[in-house]
């Protein structure tokens, strides 16, 4: 039924054309849409990859992203209340906001990490619940203590210009957060590949029993650290999104980055450098889908259908390969 409706129509060509133009068709599309979208996807994708490599099923990147965004906005509100000058804002408060975002993201993940380590609570379940708590907390903040001064819209006041991340390329919307994402991926790659902590993390994820008995690794400690690092990355993503793109906090600030991140990490086979490519690909997909909705009237939810198809395709390929090996 779907194929008869969808295929065999000239609109298809028009829609795909709009998808391509929206993602890569112009300087604006690349630097102000695709790569800007890729930043939160890469950072949250890294968060998921680091956790999954350690065997931690953190599906709470969404909540940790929101925690980071809230922390950054709260920092901005505090600085505005203290009436700091633009220079102090830019060189002290902005880095402070990013650090606060990472810390609150890690703390949010830390609740689930603590519940797992102390009480053996499955992180799959606890992180789902913490996502909802974070969502409701943001809903409260933007209608309560952090609401914009006129108290009309459910969102925070805009961050003052001193708190905005500088643009990487003048005349585009590509902000410094893109560089952060690349650096974070590089650091994650190096840590996982070349440090003792990275080895302990990977060993704990690959086989916790062997890591503990043969490797003498404190698996609980290694996985807890990975969980916190994962939360910090997702929190940084939220802080970067607020200081680089939206400049304010509101309820739907994340269109599900924390869930798409799972697809990004999986497509990258949980490899940090691959996450950059997967993040850009999915950023292009979402930017293109938005253009497709605007120009060709095709709903942008088609992006999540493609994302789902990508995940299922990768899983099927992996599993049939495993099947043949047996």
């Amino acid at each position, binding site marked *: 039924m779907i194929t008869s409706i969808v295929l065999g129509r000239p609109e298809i060509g028009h829609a795909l054309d709009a998808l391509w133009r929206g993602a890569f068709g112009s300087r604006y599309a690349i630097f102000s849409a695709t790569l800007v979208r890729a930043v939160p996807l890469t950072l949250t994708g890294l968060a998921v990859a680091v956790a999954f490599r350690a065997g931690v*099923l953190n*599906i709470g990147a969404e909540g940790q992203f929101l925690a980071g965004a809230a922390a950054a906005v709260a920092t901005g509100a505090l600085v505005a209340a203290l009436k700091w000058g633009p220079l102090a804002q830019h060189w002290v408060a902005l880095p402070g906001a990013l650090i606060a975002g990472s810390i609150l993201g890690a703390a949010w993940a830390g609740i689930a990490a603590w519940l797992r380590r102390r009480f053996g609570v*499955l992180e*799959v379940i606890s992180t789902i619940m913490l996502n*909802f708590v974070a969502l409701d907390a943001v809903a409260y903040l933007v209608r309560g203590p952090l609401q914009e001064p006129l108290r009309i819209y459910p969102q925070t006041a805009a961050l003052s210009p001193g708190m905005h991340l500088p643009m990487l390329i003048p005349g585009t919307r590509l902000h410094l957060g893109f560089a952060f994402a690349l650096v974070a991926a590089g650091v994650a790659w190096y840590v996982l590949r070349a440090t003792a902590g990275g080895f302990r993390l990977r060993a704990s994820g690959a086989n916790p029993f062997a890591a503990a008995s043969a490797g003498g690794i404190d698996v609980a400690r290694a996985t807890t650290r990975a969980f916190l690092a994962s939360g910090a990355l997702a929190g940084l993503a939220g802080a970067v999104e607020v200081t680089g793109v939206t400049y304010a906090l509101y309820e739907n600030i994340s269109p599900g980055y924390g*869930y798409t991140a799972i697809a990004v990490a999986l497509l990258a086979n949980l490899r940090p450098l691959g996450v950059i490519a997967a993040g850009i690909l999915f950023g292009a997909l979402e930017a293109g889908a938005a253009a497709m909705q605007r120009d060709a009237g095709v709903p942008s*939810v088609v992006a999540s259908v493609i*994302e789902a198809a990508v995940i*299922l395709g990768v899983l099927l390929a992996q599993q*049939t390969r495993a099947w043949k090996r047996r």
Partner: protein
Amino acid sequence: MEAPLTGFLAATVRTATPLALAALGETVVEQAGVINVGLEGVIIAGAFAALVGAGTGSVTAGCAAAIGAGVLVAGLFALVAVLLRADQIITGTAVTLLGLGLTGLLYRILYGVAGAALSIPTMRSLPLPFLSRIPVIGAPLFDQPPVTYAVYLLVPALWWWTYRTHAGLALRSVGENPDAARAAGIRPRRVQGWAVLLGGVLGGLSGGTLVLAQAGTFAEGMSAGRGFIAIAIVALGRWHPVGSAIAAGVFGAASALQFLFQAMGWSAPYQLFLVLPYVLTLIALATTRGRRGAPAALSRRAM
């Protein structure tokens, strides 16, 4: 005082019904050691199919379509995560994305940007004789659409099936220790596959309830996280059908409290009530020593 209380109880039962349906299904799924994060996708598929089915003019067709779509989506999850043994969490995420995306896409294709202006037949409430006339609690509990009564019957039925029959014992043994179950002549993956499909029946019907008994229409993303809430409910209900039903009531009551507060003119941040059940669940999970309550092999890949 009676009117707001009755309204509060009615809202609780109304909100809890689809949650309880989905959670009861997920209880069975998790008792078999599988966690289906794709439940959200199952519910939204059921909701959309209910609109299409009921568009033919009958509520029964809507229900049947909702169940069919739920089974279809759950079947996809079972194929990839149970039969091919892919990671359950990743598969579930994909299924949720697929369900949300595909229903949104089909909705726009079939009904256009304006949405479904057509009116579909809805499930009317069916007051039970005598019972619905009990003061205060009668109307909220027994003047409801038939699907709510189905939940009332399903709870003891599932309890009896999972705890008092050989099939139920096989189900739970797969969730506790698939290897031991296999040694006892049970086929773990077959049991898990059937459990996931049953979860699809109830999850699809849960989505159908949203459309047929509540909203009377479909909206993109109208499942609004209920699949994930159902997973929380299962945990709060400690992986037991009766527990899940009570937990669904707690979650229903929490969101109904905001209506009560509005009706009484009390001001309080309603998000507090919405958050309460999640916090309660986390505390309940933490205070159950170890993973007691949860099936021991939950979310582990089947051998």
